């Protein structure tokens, strides 16, 4: 897979949850208190979006609208979905002007 | 400590006069304080400003109620303002006026120990081309009180206004210094 085009690439694997056990472990200033990369919202999904590249016109509306975000643009210009983070909300399917994305029931 | 009160009208530079007098006394090596009456100022309205001069640091932070010296920049104020209010015994009054000693004394509620008169408006008009009397009147203050020398007054004026403006104002002060008439009463 092409890591360059994913939103998260290797960072996903390296992401660590920040846990502060004592007040001294806290940073002095409340900056960067953690990363949502550790938050695999893919667990929340009951419907899964599937992209049909034959209908896709590369308008990237889905990419813009995904609230997570979980959609990235591949090197060939088509969009793909990082299912570790896609929570199945269906916004992409709703916004896609060509109906290239369909939500399919997912049994886990 | 010497306390001075200036009476003028908004726009005549009474506040600047108080500041320049403080600067001149500072150049003489004194401790000083200068401030306007803490009010809302408008052009033409009666304005008061104050200067304190002492040999030790001035800590007091109140208005001046009993001045040693009163300076009046605008003769018309004598009609409406009691300029000698609170004037200490032995106090000095300095007035910009064309009038005579007798005429002026008639208008003062309290007789000062010393009265100094100068036609600062004419001097200002001749030297500056403007009826702004705040610098010329300081020449009269130097003459009548001796609390600052005319040299330091000129220096303080030049510190406040740069270039030609400073020179002209210093000249006005010097001329007023020479023309001021002082009466011991």
């Amino acid at each position, binding site marked *: 897979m092409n890591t360059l085009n994913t939103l998260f690439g290797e960072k996903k694997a390296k992401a660590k949850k920040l846990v502060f056990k004592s*007040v001294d472990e806290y940073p002095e*200033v409340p900056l*960067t208190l953690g990363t949502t990369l550790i938050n695999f919202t893919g667990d929340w999904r009951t419907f899964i979006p599937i992209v049909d590249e034959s209908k896709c016109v590369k308008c990237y509306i889905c990419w813009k609208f995904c609230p997570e975000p979980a959609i990235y643009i591949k090197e060939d210009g088509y969009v793909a979905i990082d299912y570790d983070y896609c929570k199945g909300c269906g916004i992409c399917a709703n916004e896609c002007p060509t109906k290239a994305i369909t939500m399919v029931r997912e049994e886990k | 400590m010497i306390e001075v009160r200036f009476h003028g009208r908004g726009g005549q530079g009474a506040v600047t006069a108080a500041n320049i007098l403080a600067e001149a006394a500072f150049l003489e090596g004194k401790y*000083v304080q200068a401030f306007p009456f*803490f009010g809302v100022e408008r052009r033409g309205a009666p304005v008061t400003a104050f200067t304190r001069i002492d040999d030790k640091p001035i800590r007091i*932070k109140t208005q001046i109620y009993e001045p040693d010296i009163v300076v009046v920049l605008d003769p018309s104020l004598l009609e409406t303002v009691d300029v000698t209010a609170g004037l200490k015994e032995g106090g000095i009054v300095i007035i910009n006026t064309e009038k005579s000693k007798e005429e002026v004394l008639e208008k003062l509620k309290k007789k000062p120990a010393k009265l100094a008169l100068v036609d600062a408006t004419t001097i200002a008009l001749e030297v500056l081309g403007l009826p702004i009397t705040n610098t010329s009147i300081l020449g009269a203050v130097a003459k009548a009180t001796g609390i600052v020398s005319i040299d330091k007054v000129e220096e303080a004026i030049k510190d406040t206004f740069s270039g030609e403006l400073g020179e002209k104002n210093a000249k006005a002060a010097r001329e007023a210094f020479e023309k001021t008439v002082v009466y011991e009463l």
Partner: protein
Amino acid sequence: MPKKVVSGNYAAAYAAKHARVEVVAAYPITPQTSIIEKIAEFIANGEAEIQYVPVESEHSAMAACIGASATGARAFTATSAQGLALMHEMLHWASGARLPIVMVNVNRAMAPPWSVWDDQTDSLAQRDTGWMQFYAENNQEVYDGVLMAFKVAEHRKVNLPVMIIESAFILSHTYDIVDMPPQEEIDEFLPPREPLYTLTDFDNPIAVGALGTPADYYEFRYKIEKAMEEARRVIKEVGKEFGEKFRRDYSQMIELYKTDDAEFIFMGMGSLMGTVKEAVDLLRKEGYKVGAAKVRWFRPFPKEELYKLAKNVEGIAVLDRNFSFGQEGILFNEAKGVLYNTDAHPIMKNYIVGLGGRDFTVSDIKTIAKNMKEIIERGKLDREIEWYHLKR
């Protein structure tokens, strides 16, 4: 050392320039002060290299200072009264993000009715924002205060903003002699800022304004309090160093004047304490054993100093040029609170004085001294809070 006859506002502007402030953000219209005017003049004359950001409100002025400070710049602003009130939300942001911004506030009474005169309620209403507060007695203290403020604020153990507070008119528009050390000596005292973090470190991007859940928020509050505690030590250190370098000592958070053998003392903040000292000298000539305690730093509050002082006097007349409606004078309230759990319990009376610029004179202080003496002799308060000037 060069001395200048300047107003309190100009003293503040000179200090900002001499502190090599890099960014000044301000709303240049009323209730803005001549501090910003003078700084604009410095910039226009090429005398100071300062980025001046004119904004559309005081709220935005503080926001711009926060942004500038978060990039590592030394940021400064000034305001007064309603302007300070409008900044309120942003004041919390500055301290919460631990940014050493310095601001001069000219103490002006809050409207209505409209007033442009001296009153401390505007700054004291910002008591709980996490800003340090220093009350100046005279123009020299305004100037010195700004220089020290940056050093204290930027100290690596502190990183909190400071408000330097001066009286409207009584300092802001009064000309007085201010001693300004040579720039090289100031630079030595106040080296360039070493920021705790910076937004412009693009190799190590950070998120500012993160969410603090109930699991974490609490600890960050504690950290601010810890920094305030450190500040107590740092303030004394910096004040001492300032004294050694520039011969004006600020190592005491409460300045004591003739308190050693005093039976009772006057306690207060800001410019009115100059007049109080003058009155103390006169009262002593009349046989009163009185002294004065000027609270320089209101935040962090000098608890220990107050305790030591209170232990050795029979009475304290707290002079508040401010009021917390529904309670009492704010300094009085704080001081009583500090002493409650100690063994120091002098008789304390609150005199509400000078609100909205009412002149507070030597003869007023003499009247109060007489009243305090009677109270101490009787061993009982006549009343706890006295609206001293009230026309009855």
